[in-house]
């Protein structure tokens, strides 16, 4: 009874105009951010990590004292150009779909002799340290700048990864009942002042891929999509997803395939 009454009240007031509702439709704040995003991207500190990543790729390192120049990113051993734009993809040697960083970590293990445990122990950048896979992923990504995204959907496992990724994207759980769609399922919304693209739409999905790996202004550190998804899940109040796990590769398959056909611009700059 009580509830019905209040519901009626609420419905009655829903039509009351919000004093600043107009400000929400055409977002001048977002427009201002976009204008200066261009200025910031013109000179991007991410380039400092591209240089570092290239050195790490070419230098013999690890217990096996090998470089990564024989690493197969999906276009054949050692082919870096354009590879990032065609991942995640299925790799027969491991029987699973891998995103770029997952594949780089795989190569560091198999070619150079590093262990997953040591690479996964502290995989994200902080003020004093940028993990090697982050720099290498930045280098690899830069070699796909200007290339159209074309994450393949040929192998059955690539299709399965897309389908699983979609389910993961929509999965609502955790203390706050959030899914990825809580922030990225509706057009034109923002959290605080940060615009939230709707990743279920192809024209906006590109914003999940574009600008990553990204130089993050907060903290002034380099981050990859592995970090982005990890921190989304933290804020989603979920438990923690495994670094370079199949779950994250599947989610990245969903996001990248949704963006296929659009031009990837290389490492970017993020708030």
């Amino acid at each position: 009874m009580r509830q019905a009454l209040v519901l009626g009240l609420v419905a009655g007031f829903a039509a009351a105009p919000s004093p600043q509702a107009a400000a929400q439709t055409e977002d001048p704040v977002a427009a201002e951010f976009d204008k200066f995003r261009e200025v910031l991207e013109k000179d991007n500190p991410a380039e400092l990590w591209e240089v570092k990543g290239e050195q790490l790729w070419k230098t013999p390192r690890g217990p096996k004292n090998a470089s990564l120049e024989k690493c197969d990113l999906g276009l054949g051993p050692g082919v870096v150009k354009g590879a990032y734009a065609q991942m995640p993809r299925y790799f027969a040697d491991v029987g699973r779909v891998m995103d770029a960083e997952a594949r780089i970590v795989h190569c560091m293990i198999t070619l150079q002799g590093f262990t997953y445990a040591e690479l996964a122990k502290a995989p994200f950048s902080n003020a004093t340290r940028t993990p090697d896979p982050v720099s290498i992923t930045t280098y690899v990504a830069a070699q796909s700048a200007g290339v159209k995204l074309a994450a393949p959907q040929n192998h059955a496992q690539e299709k399965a990864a897309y389908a699983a990724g979609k389910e993961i994207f929509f999965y609502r759980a955790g203390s706050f009942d959030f899914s990825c769609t809580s922030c990225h399922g509706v057009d034109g919304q923002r959290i605080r002042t940060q615009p939230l693209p709707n990743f279920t739409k192809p024209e906006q999905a590109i914003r999940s891929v574009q600008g990553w790996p990204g130089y993050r202004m907060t903290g002034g550190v380099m981050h990859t999509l592995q970090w982005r998804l990890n921190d989304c899940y933290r804020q989603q109040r979920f438990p923690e997803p495994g670094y370079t796990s199949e779950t994250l590769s599947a989610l990245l398959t969903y996001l990248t395939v949704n963006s296929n056909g659009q031009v990837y611009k290389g490492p970017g700059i993020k708030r």
Partner: protein
Amino acid sequence: MKLKTLAMLAAGAALLASCATGPGDARRDALAMMQRDFHARGIAGMDRLKQDEVQAACNKYNDNPPKELAAKLQSQQYAGVKWPQDGKYLGDWKSGEKIAQNGRGMAWNDKGGVGGSCYNCHQIGPATTSFGTIGPSLYQFGKLRGYGTDIQRYAYAKIYNAKAYTACSQMPRFGHAGALTEAQIKDLTALLMDPASPVNQ
């Protein structure tokens, strides 16, 4: 690797069979994958991956459940609202403003509940221009709706459990989830409903 993966997928699927509603292959694979790939960290245990009835229904119906189901879920959620012990809904709006500003709480790097993250999604007080737009503006909440006890009670319950009114609301169930205490919810209710709060100026 492949065999192991399949075995784990199967095991995971069995584990999750209880909460998977009408599972297709993709859904079953996804749930098994998540069950295998996530790990507990800090206060965020693996139990958080298990959907309750509301989450499962919203997931299944894409946040748009049939009317009867929505009504049933809402009344269940409403029945679980714990009302203030002293019967008063309004706390201190100044403290409420701080709670509304604070975006921390319940994540794996938190110790428990902290703030309400309210400004992340709502316009509230006039002094803060960096507000989100996921939820409706709450500016002049009391002034527009009246300051009566029924509205106080509604605001309190909405913060305690938003799903008591909209089954698949995007708003967290702060009281239900243990993310905010009774005192904090009263402070937030005061922020919205106290005639002296800047929200109502």
